[in-house]
């Protein structure tokens, strides 16, 4: 098998990896805001629950969480799920896992904002919602970009864990190719693709940092 064919097959898997990556971001970035606000809530039971949630999500393996989500409908609720549920379970697990990490990053950003910004907004009559979305959040985004970059780069590599519940992403394809073709080349190609993707993410993050670099506080 020539390298071109291998790359073609790996790219098919890579499309699935990107789907896992993209859907996780689309779900976890906003869900993280909700979790962070819960974690910062004045209502103690909610604060406690989100704290436990974050602790479990960070304290247990993502692979185990994927299996838990995959098997839960059958073992807990007695619902039969089709083969297509593999992918759904994988995405759900990724989203709830990454939302916990994002939430802690958001919290660090929100708590780093000086009280004066809230007071200035309050004096000017902004509602709490307006204060959060117009004054606090835009500044928080700038502050948390480097930490988010870390997490997003980890995510693209973590998509290979989807292999464990049988989602045929790029790592699955490369492993199959290595076994059938008796060569390390597919792994090297896969590694190159992951790395190039990370370079693109790094580029995107630094562009965003430059764009928000028009001010400092």
């Amino acid at each position, binding site marked *: 098998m020539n390298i071109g064919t291998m790359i073609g097959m790996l790219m098919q898997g890579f499309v699935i990896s990107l789907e896992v990556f993209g859907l996780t971001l689309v779900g976890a970035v906003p869900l993280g805001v909700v979790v962070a606000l819960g974690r910062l809530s004045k209502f103690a039971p909610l604060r406690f629950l989100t704290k436990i949630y974050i602790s479990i999500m960070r304290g247990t393996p993502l692979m185990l969480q994927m299996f838990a989500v995959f098997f839960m409908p059958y073992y807990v609720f007695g619902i039969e799920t089709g083969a297509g549920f593999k992918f759904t379970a994988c995405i759900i697990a990724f989203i709830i896992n990454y939302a916990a990490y994002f939430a802690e990053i958001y919290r660090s950003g929100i708590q780093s904002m000086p009280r*004066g*910004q809230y*007071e*200035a907004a*309050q*004096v*000017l*009559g*902004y*509602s709490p919602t*307006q204060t959060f979305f*117009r*004054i606090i959040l*835009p*500044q928080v985004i*700038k502050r948390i970009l480097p930490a988010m970059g870390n997490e997003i780069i980890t995510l693209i590599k973590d998509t290979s864990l989807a292999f464990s519940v049988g989602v045929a992403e790029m790592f699955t394809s490369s492993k199959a190719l290595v076994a059938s073709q008796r060569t390390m080349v597919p792994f090297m190609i896969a590694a190159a693709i992951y790395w190039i993707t990370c370079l693109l993410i790094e580029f995107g993050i630094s562009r965003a940092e430059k764009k928000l670099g*028009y*001010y*400092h*506080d």
Partner: protein
Amino acid sequence: MTNPQTPAVSVLHARKSFGNKVVLDDVSLNIMPGEVLSMIGPSGAGKSTMLRCMTLLDRYDSAQFSYGDLSVCDNGQDGRAIYSRDAEREARMRFGIVFQHYNLFPHYTVLKNITDAPIVVQKRDRTEVEAEAMELLRQLDLLEHANKVPCELSGGQQQRVADEATSALDPKLTADMQRLIRVLASEGMAVGIVTHEMGFAKLVSDRIAFLFDGEIAEEGPAEQVIDDPQDPRTRRFLSQAED
């Protein structure tokens, strides 16, 4: 319109404690329309707490407190202040506040720092608000900086945007601030200032209140309080402030 005889801001018998510490102990203060009042006194005397409560950043434990004819809080049967949320909201439309630290929004331009709240909160017309803001910036000699963000301005310029008047300003800027405060007052606005600059307080104020340990130890015309203080605590404070 407010009757010129009604104080623009009136606080009667204000009390406030943080835990066991009494910060304000029966303080009464009012500012008439067009009047400039400065509060001076040592750190911890209660000046800032007084101003924070007057600007609704904090609440009195008990007080009768009103903006013109709008009552913001009054005491209930148990003697504790009861605030009306509607009155608080309405009162916030009636005053502006300038912080010791600039507290500009760093991600907004100078112009947007001034116009965002009137447009977003008070739902006023953008064109009109921006025209007013440009006029204000012209008065402050900051017109050319309208589209810069705060970090591109010098400290003094930031402070002028924030409309604050005190020590970080050089003498020329202090004179500018003094003129601006007088202009605002001549338009009928009541101005309350907390400052540690005695010279500035004397120049800009009509009246000065000297706070000490949560009480008003002395209050009177600016020149008299600074040049001929009656209360021994004021004398001691002023002689130390000169050093």
